[in-house]
């Protein structure tokens, strides 16, 4: 059996390792287009904070990890998939055959059409190469403008602030992390950042970038030595053109991670997989989803019919010491009830969304302990019974509700 995995991120690596556990004899190959060993983008902010060296971002600690597992990690870039021929053609002219193919090519930053965005003083923060550029350009006292305060932008923000730069953040949405949290929590994050000396502009776009800085739509001028963009990502699907593999926002897959083409699977940021909360298919470009995808896709590739329950959209942020998190339908569902506590002076916020007596989503700011039970309650679809009313009255009793409904007490 020959397994070929395109993409050396968490989804691809997890799939390869899972395949090896399931099949000792198979040929397993990962092909990645970056020069470094497989690494984790999640770790880049900590590299920028000087918490770790580059090696600390590597997905597997031991240099011979993949060799020991007889997983071949090859550098290369796939130009085309020949589904009928069970082959992929590489940019360097070579080609590789497969019995079973996993597309795990991830996603790449989107660059909005802003004049000057291709300038030499502008970079995204996505790859280790980007990280090196930022490390060189964002020194203590440097003026840095960060465009985008979504989830990734906010993580980068944390790292930049730790580097001691003079930081301004511009977010086109009405608030920070608009797709992760509601107005109260998003507003709280903004005020928190401002209280820590970061200038935050929300509800406004960038009209142009030049060598000296950034000009906003209202002509506000932000001088900058370095401009960093974090304006979203899109799935890397370009190479699939003409392959017959169906693509929407990402590669369309079913609950077994199969594409419409025989023996071709997809997982991770590139895949438009089942959303646990909505039942729709969507791209969830987050680390836990990538590893879940990789794991279960591998089960299916090896012949086990594992049906995916869907990925839960969730995020955790540490914004200059203020923790926040978001799970599932944090924005609620039609006909569902909602419990909320808002304490702006104490930098705390808690919001629970119910569908009947089940928790379907949550947002929290300042919650640091036992956060994972929010996932547990949502993903287990736990009927809360009488605890629903208790949580409506006092949402802080979450842990009790969790234990009472899921554990033997």
């Amino acid at each position, binding site marked *: 059996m020959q397994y070929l995995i395109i993409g050396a991120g968490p989804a691809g690596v997890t799939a390869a390792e899972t395949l090896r556990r399931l099949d000792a004899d198979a040929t397993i190959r990962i092909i990645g287009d970056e020069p470094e060993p497989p690494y984790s983008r999640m770790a880049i902010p900590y590299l920028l904070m000087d918490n770790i060296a580059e090696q600390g971002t590597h997905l597997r600690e031991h240099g011979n990890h993949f060799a020991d597992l007889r997983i071949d990690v090859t550098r290369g870039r796939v130009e085309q998939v020949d589904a009928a021929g069970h082959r992929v053609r590489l940019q360097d002219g070579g080609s590789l055959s497969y019995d079973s193919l996993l597309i795990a090519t991830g996603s790449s930053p989107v660059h909005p059409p802003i004049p000057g965005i291709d300038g030499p003083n502008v970079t995204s923060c996505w790859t280790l190469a980007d990280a090196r550029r930022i490390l060189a350009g964002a020194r203590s006292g440097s003026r840095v403008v960060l465009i985008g305060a979504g989830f990734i932008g906010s993580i980068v923000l944390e790292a930049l602030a730790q580097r001691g730069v003079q930081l301004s953040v511009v977010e086109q949405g009405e608030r920070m992390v608009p797709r992760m949290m509601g107005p109260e929590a998003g507003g709280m994050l903004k005020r928190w950042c401002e209280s820590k000396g970061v200038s935050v502009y929300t509800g406004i776009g960038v009209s142009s970038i030049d060598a000296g800085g950034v000009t906003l739509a209202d002509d506000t001028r932000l001088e900058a030595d370095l401009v960093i963009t974090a304006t979203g990502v899109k799935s890397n699907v370009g190479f699939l053109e003409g392959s017959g593999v169906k693509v929407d926002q990402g590669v369309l897959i079913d609950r077994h991670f199969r594409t419409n083409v025989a023996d071709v699977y997809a997982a991770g940021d590139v895949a438009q997989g089942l959303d646990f909360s909505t039942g729709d298919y969507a791209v969830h470009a987050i680390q836990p989803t990538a590893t879940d995808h990789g794991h279960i896709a591998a089960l299916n590739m090896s012949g086990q019919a594992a049906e995916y329950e869907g990925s839960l959209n969730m995020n955790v942020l540490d914004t200059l010491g203020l923790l926040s998190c978001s799970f599932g339908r944090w924005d609620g569902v039609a006909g569902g009830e909602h419990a909320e506590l808002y*304490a702006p002076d104490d930098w705390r*916020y*808690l919001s629970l969304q119910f569908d009947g007596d089940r928790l379907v989503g949550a947002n929290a700011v300042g919650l640091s302990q036992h956060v994972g039970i929010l996932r547990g309650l949502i993903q287990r679809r736990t009927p809360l019974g009488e605890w629903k009313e208790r949580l409506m009255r*006092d*949402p802080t009793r*979450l842990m009790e509700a969790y234990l009472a409904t899921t554990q033997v007490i």
Partner: protein
Amino acid sequence: MAWTRKILRVDLNNGTCTAEALNMAWAKDYLGQRGLATKYLSEEVDPKCDALGPDNKLIMTTGPLTGTMASTGGRYSVVTKSPLTGLVACSNSGGFIGAEMKNAGWDMIIFEGKSAQPVYLYVENDTAELRPADDLWGKSVWEADELLHKKHQDPLLRVACIGRAAEQGCLYSAVVNDLHRAAGRSGVGTVMASKNLKAVAIRGTKGVGNIRDPQGFMAAVNAGKQVLADNAVTGQGLPTYGTQVLMNVINGIGAMPTRNMREVQFDGASKISGEAMHEPRKSDGKPNLTTNAGCFGCTIACGRISTVDRGHFSVENKPEYWGNSGGLEYEAAWALGSDTGVDDLDAITYVNFLCNEDGMDPISFGATVAAAMELFQEGAITTEHTGGIDLSFDRADTLVKLAELTAKGEGFGKDIGLGSKRLCEKYGRPELSMTVKSQEFPAYDPRGIQGMGLAYATSNRGACHLRGYTVASEVLGIPVKTDPLATEGKAELVKAFQDATAAVDSSGLCVFTTFAWSMENIAPQVDAACDGDWSVDKMLEVGERIWNLERDFNMRAGMTADQDTLPKRLLKDAATVGPAKGRVNDLDKMLPEYYALRGWTADGQITPETRTRFRL
């Protein structure tokens, strides 16, 4: 070491919170908690001040072992001048807030002045601030506790709070922490209310370290835990039956104060005893008692967690009282039960809940109701005074009604909130008040336990069992059995218990450990934790120093030695039944010897030699 060496000083006049260094010279003379806070009070407060005026201070204080792994090391005390007695007040409580204060990095919080508006103190580690409490004022302890947890979105926040009783001036109001533990006696909650301070909410995540000899400390702690586990009282008796096991014992020896201490045995004792709390109810087959519970770090776990029968008249349409809460402990069961003649376990449990919910000392409340019942029986109080309530002894419905009124400061509850002394004076029969220095008695009749008579008469906070619990020896045989009806040797026994208790109360440990531990078990734990030489002798010396300091404060407050006495009923009216039949308390046979042992003059004054000895 073991101390955090930091005090939080809260000026309620200006709304400021300031950190200051702990006076380590004093710490080495007074150890912590009860002793050390009394030293601060004594140095900073004019003993003659109005207890409910802005010149009084309120000190919340921990001991060096508070927050450590020493078994029962979760205690804290509230020290102030008492509005009930006009003397020093030191009320000790378990639960969890003491350890939380220590975890936040504070040995002590001193409140001074008076806030113009209702406030609460919020402490999160080094950060402390006063915040408006307008939305909390007028709320019960239980309501305020929930509001504070929601406000701060922190289920682990620890709260100490006053209830409506304190706001309404009830003179024996408690500071309740963790919903059902209380710094209960002497009206410390009333002082808190007088300062417009509704609550103290603390979150500490710094931990308690600074142990002088960590390995030695853990060895001493583990040895101590083993002694508690192996001892039949602390390892089995207290966890299973709680303090309430005493109900039948004390009744059996004829020392159960009954119906305002007119009698010494209660016919209904077994119905409200610790054993009765285990019996399945007819209505739902469940016992009153759900489980035992420990305070922070406690490996004894004598605490009771109980429910009231849902069908009982007191709660039948009040589902908010159908859940579990703390109770009953012996003193509360006695005061609310035997002393009023009520033998209805559910009614007593419910009233005890109310005492916790609105912050009333159940001993003083029950004893004051008992006094009111006798005044009613004597015709000094009539239904015209009470708004139609029949105050006959033994009536559970009356007890319940009075608790509800007193908790909210309504109607005749205002009078019950005066305490026994002032109530009996108001209605012209001061001799019916069963108090020492204006504080109500607890649950041991000194005619049947002679040493307790001396302990009550000389207690620095008025009638109290926890200043020198000679019951341990006279009744329970701990550490050795003495004859409860004898007076010989009791002066020495009382002094020894008083001094040892003062030292234990200053360490952060619970005095209940002494049912199994001697000072030989305690001193090594203190010594390993703290700088300085904390030998057994040093502990006892510190205990005696504390006792003299408290006495000195009281004398400066205007107390006279002739207040070292008991109500006439206990000195003149002999017990009519039981082993003590024919006996009164022979205080006059014990008191002179006690003064002499204390190094005081024959008229109860601290001699200059004694002052010098203890550096007062």
